[in-house]
Structure formats: C-alpha cells, structure tokens
C-alpha cells in the first residue's frame, strides 16, 4: 500500500530549479568545458607557426578566454537547446519542463541565448527561444535518488553538416566496418570548414533514421578523452580521427593538420533491411555542460 501511495505522490521541483537551470545555460553558453579546451589548445602545437591554421586556433583560444571572462556567448549561434534529463520515478517532469522553459526565456532576455526559434513557414521569430520543438527535452527515468540534467547547445552551422548514409552505397562500400569508415570520412570531406572545425563527431551505426540521429547526438555527451568500451568501435574511432587529420582540411577548412578533435561512435540494432550510419558534426565551440540536482532543484555537483 505504502509503495503505491509513494508513486502517486508526485515530487515537484521547488523554485531553486529556475536559478539552477539559468546558471546551467549561462555556463554552457559562455564557458567551454575543460576537456574541450584541452583538446583545442593542445592541437595548436601540431600546426605550422604563422599558418592560417595556427592563426585560426590562436583566435579560437582568445575567444574561449574572452567569453569566459566577460560571461558572454562563445558563439553568437547559441544553437538548438537540448536538455537530457534523468529523474527518479515519480518526479514531476512536466513541472521541470515548464520551469526550464522559463529559464530559457530569461536566459534569452539576458543575452546568454540568441533569439533562435523561427516558424518554419512564416519565418516569424518567437523572440524567446520557445515554440514547437524548442527547447528540446529528452527525459529518462532512473533508479538514482537525484536528478541529472545535461545541456547541449548545438549551432546551426555544424548541425547543417550532419549526414546520414544508407549502406550499401555505390561509392562508399557495403554493410561492414569499411563502409562505415568511408561514410564517416565522406561526411568530413563534405563538411570541409563549414561546420567550424576542428570538429567532433558523434556517430551511430544502425537504428532507424530518427533514433540513429538522436543516438549520434547523445554520443557527444561523452568525455573527449574517454575510451569506448567496445574495442572494435574504439579502434574505428581512432582510425577515423587519424585519417581525417591527414586529409589536410584543417581548422576552418584553411588547410592544416587538425580536422577532428575526436570521434565518438555507438551502435543500435537495425532491421535486416536497413543499415544507417548517422553522423552528428559538432563544431569546436562544443557547448555541453551538466549538473546533478537535489529534490529542491539546487545543484549538488557540476558535470564536465
């Protein structure tokens, strides 16, 4: 009886949640995570001093510092607002969504987010980043007693460079690791500098077209320096990065040695008839942060 009663009593986020989410948005838009900063600054030593690639990475480094010190957006395109939220069973996700949406409105007013939500037919900008499909919430329940929220801001320039391949493909190969590798590197070739490289790839092998793209994006929640627990995928990840960095595309497509900072690959089961390779291209301004929250909505730990 008591167990039933417990699941019926919904847990409501308290008012601390608004401030926590607003601060999460501010941090995500203005302070690049440490693992990304390390990768970007580490890349510069590989480039020829004074080359366009070197200049680009230097400007990027300055920009990271300026944005952090002045608490202003790293990039003017504050992108699609993607929340990934884990909550205990019984937690009021509807309330979370309402409060987080209010925090998005406030962050837009403060200039941490650009007015980025446009009606696809009329072209009218809602002016506050809300509307159908904005912001995006992915809710999951889990057995932990606390809430975890991760936020990714993914700019339109890199989102436009995402690609999905259906194998077999006449130029890229069959339904095997070679075909997958060639498809990923074709995406890198087509993107050139347009996705604001050096880029980071999130990849999903398999799934349907929808879950494939969703899962590719979720790969971008991993730490840059982690190791894929699947040795086959781990090897594929390093091979892709190595080859991409020998392509000569370089930062911003200026030419140079740093084309990718990382590649993160996952897999989903597929239908016998389908074999998709879905690739989410992330720019160097790889804005993702997170926090764990207690039941009052206060931050207990910052992630990344």
């Amino acid at each position, binding site marked *: 009886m008591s167990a039933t009663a417990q699941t019926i009593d919904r847990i409501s986020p308290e008012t601390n949640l608004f401030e926590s989410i607003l601060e999460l948005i501010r941090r995500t838009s203005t302070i690049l995570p440490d693992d990304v900063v390390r990768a970007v600054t580490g890349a510069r030593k590989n480039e020829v001093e004074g080359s366009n690639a070197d200049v680009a990475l230097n400007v990027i480094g300055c920009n990271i510092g300026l944005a952090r010190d002045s608490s202003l957006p790293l990039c003017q395109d504050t992108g699609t607002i993607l929340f990934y939220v884990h909550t205990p069973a019984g937690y009021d996700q509807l309330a979370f969504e309402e409060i987080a949406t209010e925090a998005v409105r406030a962050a837009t007013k403060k200039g941490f*987010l650009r007015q980025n939500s446009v009606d696809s037919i009329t072209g009218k*900008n809602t002016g506050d980043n809300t509307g159908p499909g904005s912001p995006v919430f992915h809710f999951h329940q889990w057995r932990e007693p606390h809430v975890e929220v991760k936020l990714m801001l993914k700019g339109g320039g890199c989102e436009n460079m995402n690609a999905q391949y259906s194998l077999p493909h006449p130029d890229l190969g069959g339904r095997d690791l070679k075909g997958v590798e060639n498809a990923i590197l074709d995406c890198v070739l087509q993107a050139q500098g347009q996705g604001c490289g050096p880029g980071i790839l999130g990849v999903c092998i398999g799934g349907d077209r929808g879950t494939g793209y969703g899962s590719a994006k979720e790969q971008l929640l991993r730490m840059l320096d982690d190791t894929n627990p699947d040795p086959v995928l781990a090897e594929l990840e390093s091979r892709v990065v190595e080859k991409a960095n020998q392509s000569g595309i370089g930062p911003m497509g200026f030419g140079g040695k740093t084309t990718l900072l990382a590649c993160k690959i996952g897999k989903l089961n597929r239908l016998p008839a389908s074999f998709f390779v879905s690739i989410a291209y992330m720019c160097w301004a790889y804005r993702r942060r997170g926090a764990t929250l207690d039941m009052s909505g206060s931050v207990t730990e910052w992630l990344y």
Partner: protein
Amino acid sequence: MALVKLTTPIDEATIRSLHVGDTVAITGRLYTGRDAVHHRIHTGTRPPVDLKGQIIYHCGPVMVKEGDQWVCKAAGPTTSSREEPYQWEVMRDYGIRGVIGKGGMGEKTLAACREHGAVYLHAIGGAAQVCAASIKRVDGVDWMDLGSPEAIWHLWVEDFMAIVTMDAHGQSLHKNVFEDSKARLDAMKA
C-alpha cells in the same frame, strides 16, 4: 601574404590588389545580411542602405537593447554557402566589394568576384567574442521584421580581422583545399 588595412567604402583597385592568403583589418561600416536579407533582395526588394563599395557580413548577432541603445553581445560569422544562389546578383546590382563569412562560397560567387571586383573574407567561425571586440558601435538596424538574427545591422568596426580566401583573380582557397583533401581521402579509402 600581407596584412592590409581596409577602410569602407572600398574602391575597386584596392580590392583587386588583394590575394588569397592576405589578412585584412577592416575599419568603418559593416552591414550584416544573411539568409532572409539575400532572399528578399533576390525577390526584388531594394536594400534599404547604399551598398556601393561596402562589405556585407554574413552574421546573425546576439543583440540586447540597453536603454535606447542596441548592444552587440556576440557576432561571429555564419555559414556563407547558403547565400551562394544570391550573392553574385548582389555583387552585380549593388556594387558591394566584399562579403565576410565562413566556410567559403562556390563558383558563381567566385566568378562574380572576378567580374565585378570583390573578395570573400573569412572570419573565424565561432569566435563571436573576438569579432564582437572589434565592433565599436551599433549605428542602426533595418528590416527588423525578419527577426533580430536576420535583420540588417549597421555596425561600426575597427580593425576587424579576416583572411582573404577568394580573390578577384579567380583563386579560391576552398576549392584548392577541397580538391586536395578529396585526393588524400580517396587514397586512404578503406
């Protein structure tokens, strides 16, 4: 390769003296213009400002109104390839001498640069604060009905840095890097 100081409006001879690889530092007026602005001009509406000798900046800035004054909070370049269907026409009809953006543009724009005397200038994508630091004032705005990121913002810049990646001599760094990287990746194919 050289560092060249440019002051807008720019004359044709100065633009034709630039080459791929040169770095420029721009001082003067810049007008932002991206997807909706180019589409509207393409469908027959005259731009609300005189673009002769000017530079269009492919940029949708973060703008916040503080009192009566617009303040630019972030202003890096947006991807230029989306303006490829329209840019040559704006070069031909309104006499712009350059565009600033990122990612480069295609054959139509390259041909128009050569024919009408214009260049493509590459800013560093994502570097919204470095770019914003050289924007000293926001002097006005037109076509706000398109929404803030799509409007024509009148910016006053000092030493705005960019790299010439397409010049008026038919050269394109983007074309070269694409062809070179395609050959290299083909050779490494699994």
